[in-house]
């Protein structure tokens, strides 16, 4: 079973098309194993990217060095998934 301990989801806000292009370059870096939940399209739209723990530092350095704003949407993906599992088990036991 795939686990996501320490993985984060970042919400990135770009200010211009130049920054959007930089994010598209980031998308091409396969070694980072990024999963773009919302791809970079336009400064009006946020980009959401699931970053594995091992790539977090590289991605944050990339964003900060290019003055691209981001916030941490999900601090630890696995804990949110665990919470969801607990909710499902709880509601199943209530049904029974």
């Amino acid at each position, binding site marked *: 079973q*795939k686990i996501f301990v320490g993985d984060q989801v970042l919400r990135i806000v770009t200010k211009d098309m130049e920054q959007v292009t930089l994010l598209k370059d980031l998308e091409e870096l396969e070694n980072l194993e990024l999963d773009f939940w919302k791809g970079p399209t336009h400064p009006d739209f946020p980009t959401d990217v699931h970053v594995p723990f091992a790539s977090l530092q590289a991605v944050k350095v990339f964003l900060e060095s290019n003055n691209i704003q981001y916030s941490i*949407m*999900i601090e630890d*993906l696995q804990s949110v998934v665990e919470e*969801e599992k607990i909710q*499902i088990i709880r*509601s*199943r036991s209530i049904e029974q």
Partner: protein
Amino acid sequence: MRNTDSFNYASYHTLDEIYNWMDVLVSEQSNLVSKINIGSTFENRPIYVLKFSTGGTKRPAIWIDTGIHSREWVTQASGIWMAKKIATDYGKDAFITSILNEMDIFIEIVTNPDGFHFTHTKNRMWRKTRSINSGSSCVGVDPNRNWDAGFGGAGASSNPCSETYRGPRANSESEVKSIVDFVKSHGNIKAFISIHSYSQMLLYPYGYTKTPAPNQQELHSLARKAIDALSSLYGTSYRYGSIINTIYQASGGTIDWTYNQGIKYSYTFELRDTGRYGFILPANQIIPTAQETWLAITTIMEHTYNNPY
């Protein structure tokens, strides 16, 4: 589950639970609801569509599919709620009753069953199908890039390891081909609504080309009306427009194909984005999401009903 009233609509469910729920719904209202097997997945699971019909043959129909991207759980959960809503409202609600007296409604609740099962058992974040790609260790195809509409163009990947891998050829995925065969053989579907999450958008064709759809004006004004209805419940704000102008260029998408088949009212939804959870939207948001979406869907249904073509 004794009956569909005792099912918990405010929780996420496994594929087996959903398929079992379908059977109970069909047994409860066999005069209205039937289950059609339109094909099998790569891993040989049945692909089911619920048909709501009061009779007749190949009546003009409305199609709704939910969850072609398996990890978007609030989408499938909303599909369940909507199916129950139709079943409950028939005979009580004047609008649903009048629609069903003249048209059929098809709902495919789990559009990507292999992927959905995988999200419940192995990888919560799985988006694609589970087909094996020859020559690659990466699995799966993005079924929303696999349709025969600008297939292979910009906005889809040729890399099997990408989340937007288009597949080796159009309709290579049985999950897509099953719908294609069904839509073609039916021949009288008038509205096709494909539901995703999460970006809060209502989109119409095209995604693969900047050329406006011939009915763009009507599609745009209906989208505005649908979004007004949706927002009226909880104030959720949506963007709307053509796929390419509103979000990005995407080739091989579902509603581009359906529109090119002559289904004028082809729309795709992106459900709620809270900015906090992404696909892992807490289960307590399922019903509010489904309720507000239902208002937009009934607006599209009503327009389709009132504007036969």
